[in-house]
């Protein structure tokens, strides 16, 4: 019997309370953000910031050409679906003084969501809707960006009452927003992010300030 306990005692005794009291004193008030932005995001982000006037389509191409294995890394989307989504996503959240949806990798996030997050039936419905969209807008990918934008704007106007067959747009828009604002650029550059605020402090300000990402 005693052996049993001895065994537990050395195999699995939990180490606790080893965080020494200077740990937090040292960190107090210090604000460190993990700077490990995905390299690809930096490259795209920088390209965009440097004034490379990348049209949505060309950003998609950049994503496609990047890192060789990119195609293989799409779990669900075909190349064409990926490009269509990329155009729509960048119309919803375009480049401003920060990168747009494609610049932060939203289409890849959507691919992940369709593969892993959403239920299979939601993914099928989404893909069917995207297919309908592509059929109804056969030349969408090659159209001028102003035309592409008109198509997306008119769909967005119907967000609360989407035409039958195009309900996927609501899901798409949600994924674009989530994918963007939970990305590192979206959270820390576009919005404000503070991993260690140090306290809760109400304040007043004359100017509009950025919203907190989390």
């Amino acid at each position: 019997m005693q052996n049993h306990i001895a065994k537990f005692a050395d195999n699995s005794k939990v180490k606790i309370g080893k965080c020494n009291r200077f740990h937090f004193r040292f960190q107090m008030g210090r604000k460190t953000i993990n700077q490990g932005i995905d390299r690809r995001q930096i490259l795209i982000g920088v390209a965009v910031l440097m004034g490379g006037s990348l049209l949505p389509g060309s950003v998609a191409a950049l994503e496609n050409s990047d890192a060789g294995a990119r195609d293989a890394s799409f779990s669900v989307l075909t190349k064409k679906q990926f490009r269509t989504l990329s155009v729509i996503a960048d119309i919803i959240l375009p480049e401003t003084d920060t990168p747009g949806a494609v610049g932060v990798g939203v289409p890849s996030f959507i691919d992940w969501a369709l593969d892993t997050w959403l239920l299979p039936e939601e993914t099928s419905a989404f893909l069917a809707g995207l297919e309908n969209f592509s059929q109804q807008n056969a030349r969408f990918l090659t159209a001028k960006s102003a035309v592409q934008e008109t198509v997306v704007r008119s769909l967005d106007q119907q967000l609360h009452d989407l035409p039958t067959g195009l309900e996927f747009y609501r899901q798409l828009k949600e994924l674009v927003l989530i994918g963007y604002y939970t990305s590192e650029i979206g959270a820390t550059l576009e919005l404000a992010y503070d991993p260690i605020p140090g306290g809760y402090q109400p304040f007043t300000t004359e100017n509009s300030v950025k919203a907190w990402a989390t």
Partner: protein
Amino acid sequence: MKTVQKPGNYDFDVIVVGSGMSGGWVAKEMCERGYKTAVLDRGEALEHGADYKTEGKGPWELPGRGNVSKQEALQDYEHVRLCYAFDEFTKRHFIKDRDHPFTVKDGKRFDWIRSSSVGGKSLLWHRHSYRLSEMDFMANKLDGHGCDWPIRYDDLKDWYSYVERFAGISGAAEGLPQLPDSDFQKPFEMNQVEKDAKASIETAFPGRKVIMGRCAHLTEPTEEQLDLGRGPCQARNECQRGCSWGGYFSSLSATLPAADRTGNMTLIPNAQVQEVVYDEATRRATGVRMVDMVSGDRVFISARVVFVCASTLGTAHILLNSRSTAFPNGIGNTGHALGHYLMDHVSGAGATAMIDGYEDHYYSGRRPTSLYIPRFRNVTEQTDKFIRGYGFQGEATRASWNSAIGAKGVGKEFKNKIQLQGPWRFWLTGFGEMLPRHENHVSLSATETDAWGMPLLEISCAYGDNENRIKDDMQQTAIELLQAAGFRDIQGFRRESYPGIAIHEMGTARMGHSPEDSYLNGKNQCHLVDNLFVTDGAAMTSTACQNPSLTFMALSARAAAYADEQLKSGVL
């Protein structure tokens, strides 16, 4: 501190089953008094700090950006997925329901939310901490629902102070009889919207108070807390991932380290306790039988005293399964109380609103607590619609990007608008008292066992009329309060919900005056087995409407002190 002599014929002086909110306290108190104490927990071992794998991470650092695959949630986390705190960051700290099944009876539903690790739900809680009042300890006696509590507020008062000073409770003194003040560290601040709402509501309803939530966060850490490696709360409000600063109270940040540094604690994780063993000759519990969930080894561990603190239903499960010739239906069971009078709070009703103005107000930091509106029904304002009452939690925040979900708009203008702080909004949600009823009970499955051979727990529990009327009133009153505050777009809500989801499950081994009406006496000691104690939520004779964990802590510390006296005087 006096060191007691070696356990002698026993493996340990004390066995504590469960290392959560209650068990952590018993472990600390007994270890500090010199007892060799074994703490057994079903959960996996976690190293405070080092094992909080998602702590401080941004959403982009996790594959799902915080989201758990819906398929996985449905398959593996049937109940847990309904908990508001369950996400990709916190998933590891919740139990996988699929591996730990239970059943429900009589067409009822129970959403049992359980933890997966040492430290139990103390790692996961929302830290709201409120004392019960004299009114609460008198309630059963006065209206006849449930048996009379064997203790009164005065019995627990000093123990509340004792646990508060160690745990660290932030809050403000208000002098309210129905919500006695704690020994506080300084409160978090209200923002301007909240201050104004407080003024409007208190003017419109003089019997209602809007106060800052009282929570187990360090705002002015004491030397004792600093010595344990704890530091001030950093207002990250990501607590359920674990906080290596020890900014909030958990077993892992506070009680277990205190127990550990005495050198008297042996913590045994992955240990599913299946039964407390009873010896008819001495009429004592002799120890527990457990299964090492990793190796499958079955082990008997003996001790002079056994504390069962496996969370309300975990405790009932073990006690019912502790069958002997003397107690064929569970150790100490007289057939009256064990497994019965299961309660939870009634929740899921309240209101939300939007607020005009305050554009020049904002805040930095994520306050880890909210406002609280203490109970006023049947305190300052009587109603004949129901007995007992409820309290509200709520707060004002400014909308951020997620409020753009479901909104129309595309392009630069849309994006630039999202970038700036959005409008103010407010939410209020109630927690109401549930009456003890004999028919709300648990039992053991006669046919099904879990992977380690323990009969499954069967739960039969439902809200009754009083709870449903409380829930109606929580919704209507929340609307009325937000109207009084002058807000717009007020939307009441009343969600369908089942017991369990308020995560304040209590009862099933209640305290009382005699074995005829209860399982435990006023010292959390089993009426019929002197060296068996239960100090978690199972002991609760009524629920009151306050978040209950602070009371579990106070009862645990008090019962440990009593057991110590009894051991030292040779009675145990």
